Every structure is written in C-alpha cells, then in structure tokens.
C-alpha cells in the first residue's frame, strides 16, 4: 500500500496520507577487524512504524536498509537459541526478546568485557571451554538395577527446574564484574549454574568429584553474591542462588 501511493499521485481527489514517521536513534558499537583502529559508536535512525517490535528487528532493518556490514549473531528470533545476546541500554539481554522502548535513543554494546571479533560479535570460546570443563553430562559408576532407564522421582526432577532451561547465552557471565576481572580462572554464573544442574541431579553419581573440582580459590569462590547475573538473565533463571547452593555443599564437604 505504501509503494502504491506514488501510483495515485495524479489522483488529486484521493486523500491518501503518508504514514507518520516515528524515528528512533540506535547508537551501535562498531569495530572492523580488517580496518583495525579504535571501536566507534555509530548512530542509525530507524522509522519504528516500519519496524518490528524487538531490537533484533531494528538491527536487521538497519542491516538491510542502511549498512549491510553491521555484524551480529542471530538465529531463532524467539529467545531460545541464545545467539543474539548483547548489551542493550546497559543490561545484557537477547535482542530478539528486548522490546524497543519509547525513548529517543537506544544504545547497543556487545556483551561487556569480551574480546570482540567484529561489531557486536564477541569471541565465545573461553566460555565454551569453561562449560566443557565441568563435564556437563550424566556420569554413572554402575549400571541401572534392571538395565533400563535411570529412574528419578518427580521431586528430584523438580530440583532441575530453573537450571535445565539455560540456553548458554552468556548474558549472566558477561554481567558479572567478578568474571570481568577473572575471566580465565573464575568459571562465571552460567557455567556454575550448569555445574550445579549436574551436582543436584539425583541420577548423577559423580557428585563428590564435581564438588571437589570446584573447591579452589577461583573457580567458584570468586563469586561475591553481586547478583548481576540473576537480574539480567533473559530467561528469568537464578544462577546466583545456584552458586550459593554449591558453596553450601562444598563447605559441607569439608
């Protein structure tokens, strides 16, 4: 219909109004590894009346219409894959779940204190290696009684609720000042919550080893209950609480 307005430009009696423009500015962090130099902030005006409701819609619109070199990760557009995690107006969330608000400007940074590959794309390899290091799989020492499924009561299964839903978007870890200052040695809230997911799983038989692995100065105990993690989690999980529970268990082990 909008493209059709030009076709009616000769028909003077038709009262076709152009749709009002609602312009919002998006200030986006840019860094080009091929050019090098310092990262910059670039302003992009977007007509919200021609844009979807989420920040990811705006990013895609900018990439399509204004600057096709704008680089960011995205996949599911529904908050389940964890690709589009970034810092929007000061908080870490998924761009596909962050509504565009009415303020005149929105500022978009990549996840804080991460090494940047390009524009809004951080290097996630350290995060993934740390996740691997906690052995995120079921560890059994003996076979099941009747050789079939490892059974679990409803109550035991309920203990995993609020932890198994983690999509490893890294919003929480990238929000943790302790993780900023000790990226290599502190595991961070996402990985620790998953460590607890396996520690608290009644079917797992390596609980003692899992707790012993975390029992040093850095891996677990750099957490100072700042609680930035739980505040920022886009899936409304609570890694801070999970970490406090691991601490209780590790201390009880002594």
């Amino acid at each position, binding site marked *: 219909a909008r493209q059709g307005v030009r076709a009616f430009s000769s028909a003077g009696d038709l009262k076709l109004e152009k749709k009002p423009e609602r312009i919002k500015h998006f200030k986006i962090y840019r860094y080009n590894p091929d050019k090098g130099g310092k990262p910059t902030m670039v302003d992009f005006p977007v007509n919200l009346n021609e844009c979807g409701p989420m920040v990811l819609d705006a990013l895609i619109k900018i990439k399509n219409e204004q600057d096709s070199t704008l680089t960011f990760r995205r996949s599911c557009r529904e908050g389940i894959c964890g690709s589009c995690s970034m810092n929007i107006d000061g908080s870490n969330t998924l761009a596909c779940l962050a509504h565009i608000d009415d303020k005149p400007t929105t500022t978009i940074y990549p996840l804080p204190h991460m090494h940047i590959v390009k524009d809004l794309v951080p290097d996630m390899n350290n995060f993934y290696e740390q996740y691997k*290091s906690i052995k995120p799989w079921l560890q059994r020492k003996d076979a099941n009684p009747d050789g079939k499924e490892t059974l679990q009561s409803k109550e035991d299964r309920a203990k995993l609720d609020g932890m198994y839903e983690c999509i490893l978007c890294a919003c929480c870890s990238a929000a943790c*000042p302790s993780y900023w200052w000790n*990226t290599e040695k502190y595991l961070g809230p996402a990985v620790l919550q998953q460590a607890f997911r396996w520690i608290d799983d009644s079917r797992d038989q390596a609980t003692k080893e899992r707790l012993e692995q975390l029992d040093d100065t850095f891996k677990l105990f750099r957490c100072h209950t700042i609680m930035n993690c739980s505040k920022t989690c886009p899936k409304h999980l609570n890694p801070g609480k999970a970490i406090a529970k691991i601490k209780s268990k590790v201390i009880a082990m002594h």
Partner: protein
Amino acid sequence: MFSSQLKPRCFGIVQKSIQSQRIPQRSLIETRRFISDYIEQQEKKGRPLSPHVTAYRFPVVAISSVTNRITGVALTGGLYGIGALALVGLDVPSFMQYIGTSSIGPMAKFVVTFPLIYHYFGAVRHTYWDLQPESLLNKEVEMSSYILFGASGAVSVIASVL
C-alpha cells in the same frame, strides 16, 4: 539404496564434505591449557575488549556490593593509617578528641562511622545469604540493598551526632 548412489563420479564431493566437517576437538587436558592462554591469544589477534563499567547499568544490588568492598578497604586503610600514625609518635586518643570536639566533628565522625556500620550490616546480609540461599531472589535482594543503605546511613548519622 543410498550407498549405491555414491558412485566414483560423486565420490569427490562426498570426500570434500567430510573434510569440511573436520572440527578441532580438544581433550579436557588441552582445555585447561587453552583457557590459561586465552587472553594472550585474543590480544595477539588484536581484538579489543568490549566496554564494561562504562557501558553497564549497575543495579542497586551491585552498587551495594561494591560499596561493601570500598568500605572494607577504607576500614583497613584507616586502621593501618592510625597504626602508622601511632607508630611515629602521634598521640592518637587526644588527636581524635581534638577533631571530635571541633567544628568538623560530626562530619569527621560520620566519615568513620559510616564505613564501620555499613560494612557490618553488609556482612550480616552476606551471612544471611550464605546460610539461606533460598532468599536470593531479585526483588528481595534489591529491597535489601535499599534497606542496607538507609539503615546504615541513619545509624551512622545518629552515631556521629551523639
């Protein structure tokens, strides 16, 4: 039926797709070495670090946490400072008396009482969190931060005018 389609003519394409799927796998021992060299490797690639304290909007809980640290450092520094001054011969009790009764008395007292009381109440809160992890919920910890600031501010003011 499918395997019969892998005739020599298509064989080259199959081979190429298997090769392109060769993803580097790391053992768990290599993982540890990878992590320890990580920052060095990233900086070698010239990658900048994304903004953190300049870009993040800190919730009040985080502010209360960093205030706890700052007051802790201030208390330690103050203690060492007083100790050092006493070591070089300053008569600390009468010096404190002099400042306390002067015109800047209440303000100077506040500078001492606030770190003490805030850090103490902060430690109480921390102990409660450690003993009752189930209390760590977003709304509750946010409320506790406002209460912490308010209560320690109030008690410090009262202590410094008494």
